[in-house]
C-alpha cells in the first residue's frame, strides 16, 4: 500500500537522525552504567545495593530499573566503588549524604522513622490482642455444657 510505504519512508527519515540524538542524552555514557563488573560476586553485591537505591528522576523506580541518565551515572558510581572494595552500606551512606534520605529505599533508622519500624510490632500486638480476645471468649463458651 502507498500509505504504509510512505509511513515507512517517513519513519526511516525520522529514526536515522534521531538515533544519535537519543544516544547523546547522557553525554559519554558512564562506563559501568550498562556494563557489569567482571567478578560475579562483586556484581551481585552491586546489584543488591542498586535495587535499594532510588532513581531520583523517575517515579518509583530503583536505579537498577531505569534508563534515566542519572540512574546510569549512579549505577556507574556504585559499581566503581564496589570494585574498589567499598562496603555497600558505606556507599549508601555516601549517597545519602549527597542526595538525602530520599535516595535510599531502605529507610534509615532515626527518630523520624521510629514509628515506621514500630508499625509491624504494633500491628502484631494488635493482631494478638484481637485473636486472644476472640479465642478466650470461644474457650469460655466451650467449657459450658
Amino acid at each position, binding site marked *: 500500500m502507498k500509505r504504509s510505504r510512505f509511513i515507512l519512508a517517513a519513519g526511516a527519515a525520522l529514526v536515522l537522525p534521531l538515533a544519535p540524538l537519543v544516544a547523546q542524552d547522557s553525554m559519554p*555514557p558512564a562506563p559501568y552504567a*550498562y556494563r*557489569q563488573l567482571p567478578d560475579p560476586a562483586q556484581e551481585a553485591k552491586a546489584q543488591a545495593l542498586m535495587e535499594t537505591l*532510588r532513581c531520583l528522576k523517575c517515579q*518509583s523506580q*530503583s536505579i537498577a530499573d531505569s534508563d534515566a541518565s542519572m540512574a546510569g551515572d549512579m549505577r556507574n558510581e556504585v559499581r566503581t566503588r564496589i570494585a574498589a572494595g567499598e562496603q555497600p552500606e558505606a556507599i549508601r551512606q555516601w549517597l545519602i549524604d549527597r542526595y538525602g534520605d530520599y535516595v535510599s529505599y531502605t*529507610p534509615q533508622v532515626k527518630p523520624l522513622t521510629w514509628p515506621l519500624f514500630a508499625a509491624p510490632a504494633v500491628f502484631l500486638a494488635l493482631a494478638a490482642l484481637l485473636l486472644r480476645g476472640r479465642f478466650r471468649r470461644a474457650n469460655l463458651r466451650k467449657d459450658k455444657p
Partner: protein
Amino acid sequence: MIAELGLAILWMAAALAVLQLVAGALALRPQGAGMVGVVRPVAVAQGVLVALSFAALITLFVTTDLSVKLVAENSHSAKPLIFKIAGTWGNHEGSMLLWVTIMSLAGGFVALVERRLPEKTLIATLAAQAFVSLGFYAFLLLASNPFARLPQPAPEGAGLNPLLQDIGLAFHPPTLYVGYVGLSIAFSFAVGALITRDVGPAFARAMRPWVLGAWIFLTVGITAGSYWAYYTLGWGGWWFWDPVENASLMPWLAATALLHSVSVLAARNALRAWTVMLGVIAFSMSMVGTFLVRSGILTSVHAFAVDPARGSFILALLAIYIGGALLLFALRAGTVTEGARFAFVSREAALVFNNVMLCGILGIVLVGTLYPLLTEAFGVKVSVGPPYFNPVSAIFAFPMLVVMAVGPLLRWKDDRGGRVAPVLAVPALLAVAVAGAAFASGVNTLPALGLGLGAGLALASLLPLRGRNLRRTPLPVWGMVVSHLGLAVAAMGMASESAFSIEKLAALTPGETRQVGPYALTLDRIDPVAGPNWTALQATVSARYAGGDAVVLTPQARVFANPPGTRTESALKTRWNGQLYVVLGEEGDDGRWQMRFWWKPFVPLIWLGGLLVGLGGLLALVGRVARDVKRLVAIDKITFRRERQGR
C-alpha cells in the same frame, strides 16, 4: 453539540441521584411507604443516563473533537482507534466519569435483580449508593468537567503518553474501577444493613456476589497491571511497591478478608460486626487509592498544593464517607452481635486468623505508602521501598500461607488438630524439604521460605478434594481450591524470580553471541521500522535454548512523535520453565549496541497464579449465582402456585 448533550445528561443523572437519596430516606420512615416504589426505577434510570453521558465522551474522543479541552489535551487525530477509545479514560476527568458510570450501572443492576434482601434494607442500600455517587457527581460537575470546551478549537491534540499507548491501558483501569465500584456496592450493603439493623445470612448472601465480583476484577486488574509494568518498563521488574500499585493492592487485601468473612456469615451466621467493619474498610481503601492516584499527592506534597481543589475535594469525600460510615458503625455496632461462636480449632478460627493477617499486611502497606507523605510534612523526604515492604509483609504473609493450608481441612465450629495432622504431614514435609534444599543451595531466607511454603501450600490446597466425587463437588469448593492453588503458584513464581534470575548486560556488534543462563543469544542485525504513530530501531536476536533450534526475538526501541517520548519494547520468549527477556538499549560510541538479557526461571508462574486466583473466584461466583437463580425460580413457582390456590 455532543459535549453539551453529555454534560446535560450528566446533570440530569446527578439530579436523579439526589432523588434516589431523598426518596430512599423518606421510604425508610414508618409513614414513607408511598416512596418505596420510587427508588428502584430511579436507580435504573440514573444508571442509563450516566452510561449515555459516558458514551457521549467516547464519541468525542473517537471523532477527535478538538474543540473539547479534554480531547485536545489527551488525544491526537493520528492515534489508532483503540487508543482513542482507551484515551477516554486515560486521563483524570474521563476516568472519574468512568468510575461514576460503572457505579451507577452497578446500582441500577442491584435495583433490577436483587430480591433476597428485605425491601427496607435494599432501599437503604440504594440510598447509600446514591449518597456515595453524589460525591463523585459533585466532583465531576464542579471540579473536573470532562465536557468543557476550549475558547478556540486546538489545531491538533497533544496526544497520549507513549507508555500508556498499550493494549494494557485499554483494559487495566476499567478492570480496577469495576473492582473498586463493586466494593462501593458492598459498602452500601453494609451501610444499608447497619441502618436497618439487619445483619445476617440473607444480607451476606446478597452482598457476596458483589464482593466476589469486585475481588475477581481487582485480582485480574492487579495481575494484568503487574505484567504490563513487567514488559513495558524494560528492566524485568514486576512489582515496585509503587504507591499506585499499593493503591490497588490495599483494596484487594481488604476485599480478600471481606470475601472470607462474608462466607462465614453466610454459612454460619458468625462474624457479623467484623464483616460489616471489613465492608467499610474495603471501600475506604479503594477511596484512599483513588485519592492517592487522583490528587497528585504522590509525586509530592507540593504537586498536591499546586492544584489543591481536586485533592481537597477527594479528601473531603474520603472524610465524609469513611467518617460517616465509622460513626454509623460505632453507633450501631453495639446492637450487632457477633453471632454464632466457634472453638479455637475450627474453620472459622482459621479464617479469622487469616483475616487478621491480611489486615496486618494491609496496615503495613498503608503505613509504608503514607509515611513518606508524613515525613515530607516535617521537611524530610524519605523513601520506603522493597527493603521495607518485602520482609515486613512476610511477617504476616508466611503464617497466613501456613494457616491457608490447614483451614480448608478443618470442620466448622469445632474440630481437633489431631484429625487433620496426618493428612497434612506430606505437604509439611514437602515444604520443609524444598525450603531446606533452597537454603542449602545459597538462596536467601525470604525466597527460600517462599519456595517451601508455596510448594507445601500447592499440595495442601488440593487436599479438600480428596475423597470427593470430583464431578459432584460444588463449584464454590472448586473455586476455593483453584484460588488457593493459584496463590501458592504465584508465591513460588515470586520466590523463584527473586532467587534464580540471571541478568546479563552486553554491548554487542551484529554477529556476536552471549550466553545467558541456558540460552545462547546472537545479535543478527539492527533495522529501522515504523508503526502508525512511532518509529523504532529493531534488533533481531536469535536465541538457542541449550544448543537447540534458533528462535527469533525482535526487541525495539520506539520513538513517539506526539507527544515526543521513547519506550523500549522488550521481547519475551516463554518456556514452561521460565522466560527469556530481551531489551535493546542505545548504540555506544564504538558502534556496539547495548543489550539487556534476563533469564527468569518460572517467572510466568506469578501471573499464571494470579489468573488462577481470579479463575477460582469466577468458579465460585458462577456456582453461587446459579444456586441463587435456582432458588429464586423455585420461590417464584411457589408464590405462583399459592396465588392460584388462593383464587
